């Protein structure tokens, strides 16, 4: 057996490499599929919905799943399937705005800190440390309390506590690359600092930022649900999953579907982004 194994080693290794190649792509495929499903639900919501997500039929409140209402109805007699489908739009919007804001603020800050250095670096990183030291929910509660409840204010709050993550990430990338040969070479050739920052550092940082964004996406959706639980989520009658779930929790014991289906939708979405993020990290990280 030992000889055979040894003899087969090269092919085995090739097969293993292929397996690894496949398994990495399998994560991306499964994660992508789940996220794609959410995207599809968001796009096709008007076609797939059996009813108007806002139409209240009070006499049909809190119905269990049936052919007419596959997910049942909520406390105001609205079709839950329709609301979950339309909710996909809001969740994707949350991801785009929540992650987008964090990236837009965090990346330039980290870049500035890493390339300029000195006092700028210290002030920026001190600010980031202060922000980062706050337990996220605490910061979000304060921000939403100031701005008032509502989906966009909620997203601003969630974005703010992700900012330090991107700032640190970018700063590390910038510091790492600054000492690399080709950046030194570019500087020697007379390229200006902004030019170096954009051409080299930003391009090299793209991978880690994309991976981090995918992983943050799940956090955004979950944080939105937690804040809805604390009464700081979307305003009615928005079919926002976190808000639906947190409304539905008040009926646990009599009706579980009202919180179950939005809860499952949140879970699958977060799962999708997390698996996708893991796969992307494996793929883009040269070390593994």
């Amino acid at each position, binding site marked *: 057996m030992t000889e055979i194994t040894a003899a087969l080693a090269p092919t085995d290794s090739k097969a293993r490499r292929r397996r690894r190649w496949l398994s990495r792509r399998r994560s991306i495929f499964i994660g992508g599929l789940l996220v794609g499903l959410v995207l599809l639900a968001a796009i096709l919501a008007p076609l797939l919905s059996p009813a108007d997500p806002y139409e209240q039929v009070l006499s049909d409140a809190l119905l269990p799943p049936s052919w007419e209402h596959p997910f049942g109805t909520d406390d105001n007699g609205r079709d839950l399937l329709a609301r979950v489908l339309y909710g996909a739009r809001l969740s994707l919007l949350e991801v785009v705005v929540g992650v987008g804001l964090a990236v837009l603020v965090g990346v330039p800050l980290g870049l500035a800190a890493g390339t300029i250095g000195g006092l700028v670096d210290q002030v920026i990183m001190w600010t980031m440390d*202060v922000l980062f030291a*706050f*337990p996220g929910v605490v910061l979000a*509660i304060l921000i939403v309390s100031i701005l008032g409840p509502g989906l966009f204010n909620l997203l601003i709050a969630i974005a703010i506590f992700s900012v330090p993550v991107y700032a640190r990430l970018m700063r590390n990338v910038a510091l790492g690359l600054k000492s690399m040969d080709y950046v030194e070479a570019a500087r020697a050739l007379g390229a200006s600092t902004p030019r170096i920052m954009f051409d080299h550092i930003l391009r090299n940082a793209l991978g880690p930022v994309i991976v981090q964004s995918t992983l943050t996406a*799940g956090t955004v959706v*979950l944080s939105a649900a937690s804040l809805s639980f604390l009464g700081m989520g979307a305003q009615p009658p928005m079919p926002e999953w976190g808000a639906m779930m947190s409304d539905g929790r008040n009926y646990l014991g009599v009706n579980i579907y009202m919180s179950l289906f939005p*809860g499952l939708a949140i*879970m699958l979405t977060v799962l999708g982004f997390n698996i996708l993020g893991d796969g992307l990290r494996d793929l883009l990280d040269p070390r593994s």
Partner: protein
Amino acid sequence: MPTYLLKKLVTLPLILLGVSLLVFVALRALPGDPARLMAGPEAPQEAVDAMRVRLGLDDPLPLQYLRFAGSALGGDLGTSIRSGRPVTVEIAERLPKTISLALVAYGIAISVGLSAGMAAAINRNRWPDQLTMLFAIAGASIANFWLALLAMNYFAVELGWLPLMGSGSWKHYIMPAITLAVMPTAVIARMTRASMIEVVGQDYIRTARAKGLPERVVMRKHALRNALVPIVTIIGLNFGSMLGGAVVTESVFNWPGLGRLLVDSVRFRDYPTVQGVTLVAVTAVVMMNFLAEMLIAAINPRIRFD
């Protein structure tokens, strides 16, 4: 202690200063008037004004901040608007509850997360790995208030095995601690797996194996030791988000800890209490990160953080 750690220690007061200013300004920017809340919606305006004077909220803001910061330095965090007791007393009453819950939860998270992550790494790409990772990612995908309510309905109401809420006996810890542990367990398991896999591929592990050391020794002495660095970092960094999770968990389980105190205090615009609790929470987070870095320095003296 390495000098970079000393430097870190020096920045702690700076961070606390920033945090106290931020919280102070943020609280004053909140809409809602504590005097009106205390006096009740039916109270006439003159009663609200009298209440405002009583609470010391009629002074100029910079004066209020200086008064707060000055007495905070002396260990006095002011008087709670809602209960009329010193904030330090309120916190002292709640802090042990939050710390004990957090410790139990973190104990679960670290033991389960580490063993699951190692099991996954060692059985890489086989079913134990895939199963563990599926559970880990799924665990990190559920909103924990909902998980908590479902668990309460099942274990306390349907089965009657566990007390529904409150604190008092060890049985009261089970559900809140497990709920709180789900998220960090998932994070630690994933980090352990990734870190182990990376370390196992390194040259010195191959060397150790080539030297003919037993596999167990290789894994335990060489691989795990080096893999621990990022794991300890993530454990330190996650402490803050777990405190955040405690806000939700404590609210659901009626756990008399700091998280619930904070939510209630924000609602009542109890400025001194919110300030005090936030300062304590932030100090705890910063100290945890610091501890993690010291631990890393002990594990691997070559590593430094700038």
